[in-house]
């Protein structure tokens, strides 16, 4: 980044501006005065303050993302204590490596990537053959071809109480291969974009789309069996 652009950027961050106009870093020869709109995420200012030693700014980021990081770790490890440890380790690692965060991606995506790596490392440490790889079982087509064509009516929330439904949702998503479960978690539960999910997991965009489709179809198929059973037993 040029000194001028860095200066404009720093001034805008200091002023708390969320949307600024800045000169294009490498203006094309034919349009030397080209102006590009750049959106600055509010987290950027917090990260800059934390880098400068403001611990309260980092604490704000912790409060903002702790639940998300915990959920991601819990979905991958399926263990509450591990998820709590991973949440702490991920934030500590992020704090130690703040200088390496260049702002090319969202802070939250960078943090999720750290948490995913920590979670996978934790699984490897368990030394079990189960769920140590994001690529495990992703080539299976089981459940990816729809077989159940019954509508869910009335709504599942009307058929089950909160506790029962929670158990079904946990049991069902835990049955997915880790490579599918993690993509579904980031994309559909945590609302990361396809591109952000790809970046956080080190996958290509087509790979994320393929896994997401199969994850959604497998979950639908498995939930459908529950809801159909419930409907039939209450009929």
């Amino acid at each position: 980044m040029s000194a001028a652009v860095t200066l404009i950027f720093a001034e805008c961050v200091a002023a708390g501006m969320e949307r600024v106009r800045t000169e294009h870093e490498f203006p094309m020869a034919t349009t030397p005065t080209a102006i590009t709109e750049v959106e600055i995420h509010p987290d950027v200012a917090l990260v800059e303050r934390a880098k400068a030693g403001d611990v309260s700014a980092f604490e704000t980021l912790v409060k903002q993302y702790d639940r998300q990081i915990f959920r991601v770790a819990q979905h991958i490890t399926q263990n509450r204590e591990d998820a709590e440890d991973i949440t702490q380790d991920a934030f500590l690692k992020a704090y130690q490596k703040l200088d390496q965060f260049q702002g090319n991606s969202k802070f939250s995506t960078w943090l999720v990537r750290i948490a995913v790596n920590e979670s996978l490392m934790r699984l490897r440490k368990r030394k079990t053959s189960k769920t140590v790889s994001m690529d495990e079982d992703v080539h299976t087509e089981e459940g990816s071809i729809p077989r159940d064509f019954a509508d869910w009516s009335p709504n599942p929330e009307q058929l089950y109480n909160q506790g029962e439904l929670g158990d079904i949702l946990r049991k069902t998503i835990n049955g997915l291969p880790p490579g599918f479960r993690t993509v579904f978690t980031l994309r559909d539960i945590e609302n990361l974009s396809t591109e952000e999910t790809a970046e956080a997991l080190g996958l290509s965009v087509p790979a994320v789309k393929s896994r997401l489709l199969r994850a959604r179809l497998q979950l639908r198929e498995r939930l459908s069996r529950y809801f159909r059973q419930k409907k039939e037993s209450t009929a």
Partner: protein
Amino acid sequence: MTCTDFLSKMTDYFDGQVQPEFIEEVRAHLCECSHCEVVVNTTRQTIEIYKDHEIYELSTETRDRMHKAIMAKCAECR
């Protein structure tokens, strides 16, 4: 459009990224294929039900404990 063709585009369909030239084909297929219509509706419900239910909740006490532990570790490494 066959059901297999539709399924291959379903992720893009949910994300509003189906190429314009295929949108009418997708809509026409959904109008005439009750199976794919059910698959779309129940898949959408699947996504919504997971979005709406926090299946791994963190209590206030646990969050407070984690915050303190995180900030204490950060203070140690300064």
